[in-house]
């Protein structure tokens, strides 16, 4: 038996000499580790779901190809003709669930006496279905038929402010990319509701061919939007690199969703930060409790340290012994907590928590269902537990230092 094993044995038995107190400490460590793991699982899981939902309801795809500069200056003056080579590449990519062209520009909509500034979006009705859930968002009337060049889909709120009805005639006036005036009449075929107010009161969907005419685009498009089968960031970035090899980067830009929706990234960061603040407070409270028990355990053994010192034990060995005791307690607690937290998370992965009806407006304004999803991975289970473990040992530094600094005479004097 080496002296390390002796230290281990001493520490182990010391942990269990006050079984009740140690168990309470271990339980609180386990509790905090479990909360940490579970919260992290919820944050990551919910954010992943949230992103996919937001991208869907906003109908923006997960990856976009624009004319260079469009992201910073989104006007009709930046457009491009997708090359046959690019379209072939997109059709052949097995990772893609779908891709769809878009023509987008501002216009003025008139129905009877009412008029309103709108965003006109031209879509390919068939390809669009592979990328956005627009067809499923129609609440009244019908989705656009592929060859219907007269039809228009209008947002629910926009319909109201135009005081229009389904079937009504709608005039659109635009500025073309040549600077001339564009105008055409359409018929309202369907009404959609995405749940995002800004979209439902501003968007009008037309067939892409009509829209190209309206803006004098010819075969040009504003963007291509793409959707992956397995939309992880790694896969998105991989596809982005592959696309950049296909196109002329001087003319086109390829953006993943964090790039074309930076405000969503901000929102997620803010949401994580508030979650982490809560966890930090929890950790501090628990840390204080653990500090208290370890300190008590040290103080009530003062005389024993006196005996150890008189036998010739080096103070640093006493320091090590206390740290080891804290490590044991934290290790048991963190392991139990990681298991517990992962278990609960695994359940929620299967059964998302439904929070509809509570104060979730901030989520609903993004068009997100108030469901809480969880995600579990090795990292999510292990890193929070490691943090708790590290914290447990860190906390013990001070009591351990106190124990190591005890004067033998004073220690022997106690009790």
């Amino acid at each position, binding site marked *: 038996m080496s002296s390390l094993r*002796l230290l281990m044995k001493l520490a182990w038995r010391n942990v269990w000499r006050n079984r009740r107190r140690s168990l309470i400490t271990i339980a609180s460590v386990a509790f905090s580790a479990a909360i940490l793991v579970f919260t992290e699982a919820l944050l990551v899981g919910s954010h992943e779901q949230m992103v996919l939902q937001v991208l869907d309801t906003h109908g923006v795809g997960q990856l976009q190809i624009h004319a260079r500069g469009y992201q910073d200056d989104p006007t009709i003056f930046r457009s491009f003709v997708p090359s046959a080579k690019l379209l072939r590449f997109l059709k052949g990519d097995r990772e893609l669930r779908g891709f769809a062209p878009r023509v987008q520009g501002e216009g003025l909509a008139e129905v009877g006496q009412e008029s309103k500034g709108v965003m006109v979006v031209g879509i390919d009705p068939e390809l669009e279905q592979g990328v956005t859930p627009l067809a499923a968002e129609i609440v009244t009337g019908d989705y656009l038929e592929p060859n219907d060049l007269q039809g228009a889909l209008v947002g629910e709120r926009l319909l109201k402010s135009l005081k229009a009805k389904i079937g009504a005639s709608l005039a659109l006036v635009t500025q073309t990319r040549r600077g001339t005036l564009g105008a055409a009449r359409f018929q309202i075929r369907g009404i959609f509701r995405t749940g995002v107010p800004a979209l439902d009161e501003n968007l009008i969907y037309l067939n892409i061919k009509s829209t190209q005419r309206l803006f004098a685009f010819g075969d040009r498009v504003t963007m291509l939007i793409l959707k992956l089968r397995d939309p992880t960031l790694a896969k998105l970035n991989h596809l982005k690199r592959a696309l950049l090899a296909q196109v002329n980067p001087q003319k086109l830009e390829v953006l993943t969703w964090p790039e074309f929706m930076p405000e969503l990234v901000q929102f997620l960061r803010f949401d994580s930060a508030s979650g982490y603040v809560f966890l930090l407070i929890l950790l501090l409270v628990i840390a204080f409790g653990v500090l208290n028990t370890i300190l008590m355990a040290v103080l009530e053994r003062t005389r024993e340290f006196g005996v150890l010192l008189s036998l010739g034990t080096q103070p640093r060995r006493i320091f090590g012994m206390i740290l080891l005791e804290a490590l044991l307690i934290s290790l048991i607690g963190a392991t139990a907590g990681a298991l517990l937290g992962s278990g609960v998370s695994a359940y929620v992965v299967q059964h998302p928590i439904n929070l509809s009806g509570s104060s979730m407006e901030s989520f609903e304004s993004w068009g997100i269902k108030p469901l809480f999803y969880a995600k579990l991975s090795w990292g999510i289970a292990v890193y929070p537990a490691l943090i708790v473990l590290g914290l447990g040992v860190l906390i013990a530094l001070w009591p351990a230092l106190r124990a190591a600094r005890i004067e033998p005479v004073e220690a022997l004097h106690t009790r």
Partner: protein
Amino acid sequence: MSLIRTEGLEKIYRLDHVEVPALRGVDLTIEGEEFLAIAGPSGSGKTTLLNLIGGLDRPTAGQVFLEEQEITRLNKSRLAELRLRKIGFVFQAYNLLPVLTALENVEYVMLLQGIAAGERRQRALAILGEVGLAEYANRFPNLMSGGQQQRVAVARAIVAQPKLVLADEPTANLDSTASSELLDLMRQLNRDHGVTFVFSTHDPLVMERAERLVRLRDGKVFGDE
């Protein structure tokens, strides 16, 4: 060469601006293999003197020499090393580590010294035999009587073959039979192992058993027989 020599040893405790002189100039020489009792009334400075000799505390003035090496200026770590190699301690009570068995308590010091497992176990068992506790080897201290615990403490103090064992009122918590037995044991070990024993007491029966008796009063030596 003397084993222990103190020169003008003084210790003053300071308690909230009140100075309590515990030792006021002790000159004492102890030779190897002595069996020496330090006697004196309560508060006369017995514990203080033993602590200074054992390097557990530092004097206010004066020096302690162990085998002519001055120990009063060594740092904590060197003092611990010195105690480990050369000095064994027995206190009045609560000597043993409660989480270790009798055998492990005895082995502990040898572990610190880095003695190999086989030899350690063998020597620990042998010394437990010598103090008459062979069959208590695997007991924890709380299941042993006060006298048995003190015997284990003596076994632990001696097992690492120190030059000197310092025992501060080792019999104070024992009845007269157990006291007598412990003294017999210490005397036996003193003879068999040639280890110097210095113990404090205010029990006249214990003083009688000493080979040499140093009397303290008010922090000064006032008798040496």
